[in-house]
């Protein structure tokens, strides 16, 4: 994708560029069409961590619009939210067009200038000195201290790193690796190196996905009992 965002351009800018590239108007249909490209873009490009949230919110809305286009009977209650995104984008586009017109005016370089400040021209007696009568050095000290307090950087917020999450794709790969080595193994064996809840869920989803793909067969004797994962691959 040969689209590049300037720094300080947000999700709206990205959507507009994607739509313009396809020469489409701003409609729910065109928004549905660019959803994948949008997600692909934020995956492939470096986005400021503090801006990522804004990009993700819009990504979620775009995916909603896309799923709505595919399954129109779903999500009737989200209608307003989808329209809002469309409205915002239309308005943003109008301002982008206005920006281009203003840029053209600027290019003409028709600057107007004020008269330069000239003390001598303003005051005939250039030696006149008009101090604020009640000002004391202590006042100045206080004002300067206030300023320093204002400028002192705020305490740094504690940083929290996001843990690296394993994707379903990665987990499927791990299971396939394990199953190459043995005919069957338990779900708990798969979880050997993890205690993380998300990881357990991802592992379970990966297992189900492999069953759907007819890569494995699952077996559970009792409720909450051990799940056994069997290979369905015919050994060569």
């Amino acid at each position, binding site marked *: 994708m040969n689209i590049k965002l*300037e*720094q*300080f*351009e*947000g*999700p*709206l*800018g990205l959507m507009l560029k994607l739509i313009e590239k396809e020469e489409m108007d701003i409609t729910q249909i065109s928004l549905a069409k660019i959803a994948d490209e949008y997600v692909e873009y934020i995956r492939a490009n470096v986005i400021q961590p*503090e*801006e990522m949230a*804004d990009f993700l919110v*819009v990504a979620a809305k775009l995916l909603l619009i896309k799923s709505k286009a595919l399954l129109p009977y779903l999500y009737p209650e989200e209608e307003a939210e989808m329209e*809002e995104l469309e*409205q*915002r984008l*239309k*308005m*943003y586009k*109008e*301002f*982008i067009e*206005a*920006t281009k*017109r*203003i*840029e053209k*005016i*600027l*290019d*003409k*370089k*028709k*600057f*107007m*200038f*004020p*008269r*330069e*400040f*000239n003390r001598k021209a*303003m005051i005939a007696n250039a030696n006149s000195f008009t101090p604020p009568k009640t000002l004391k050095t202590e006042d100045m000290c206080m004002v300067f201290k206030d300023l320093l307090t204002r400028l002192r950087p705020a305490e740094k917020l504690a940083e929290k790193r996001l843990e690296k999450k394993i994707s379903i794709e990665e987990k499927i790969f791990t299971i396939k690796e394990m199953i190459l080595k043995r005919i069957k193994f338990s779900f708990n064996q798969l979880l050997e190196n993890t205690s993380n809840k998300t990881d357990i869920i991802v592992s379970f989803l990966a297992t189900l996905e492999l069953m759907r793909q007819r890569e494995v067969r699952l077996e559970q004797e009792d409720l909450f009992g051990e799940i056994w994962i069997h290979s369905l691959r015919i050994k060569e």
Partner: protein
Amino acid sequence: MPLKSKIESLLFISAKPMSIKQLADLIKVSEEDIKKAGEELAEQYQQNKNGIQVIKNASKFQMVSASDNAKLIQEFLQDETSGELSRPSLETLTIIAYRGPISKIDLDRIRGVNCSLILRNLLLRGLIELKSDKQTDDSFYSVSFDFLRFLGLNDVKELPEFAKLSEDNSIDKMLGTDEEKIISEEDTGEVNKN
């Protein structure tokens, strides 16, 4: 026309933007009279294509050289203004010009991205001004005289499609804009005036 002549003298001497209120206080006539005479003056200068122009922004007037003579004046002053601004800065400035006074939240929403750094830069360059509402403590951005001078406009209303873009009711609906009385730093801070 002694009133117009007085306004002319003051705008000429002060060499900076002057508020209708300050002009009224000095000349000792009502603010309405100042507003009317000032606007007439601005129109007169514009129609006669004078080398001097009177421009208006919010409730202030300023006297400046005509935009048609920009090149000549730049040469004389050896001024190197290039008029260059990054695209995101210009975009932010455009929204402020059409929709000002506008709060930061509304701006961020229209652009879909946090504008803090850009706003700071525009404030430093004097292209926008920050004014706060004393009662609610809300802050609003508007374009400055320097922005008008930069574009060679006598009033923001001369911007292309000003009426349409500034009053787009979808924006109002969306943002719930309400324009309250807004006071600038300059107006509020001046101890000696009040």
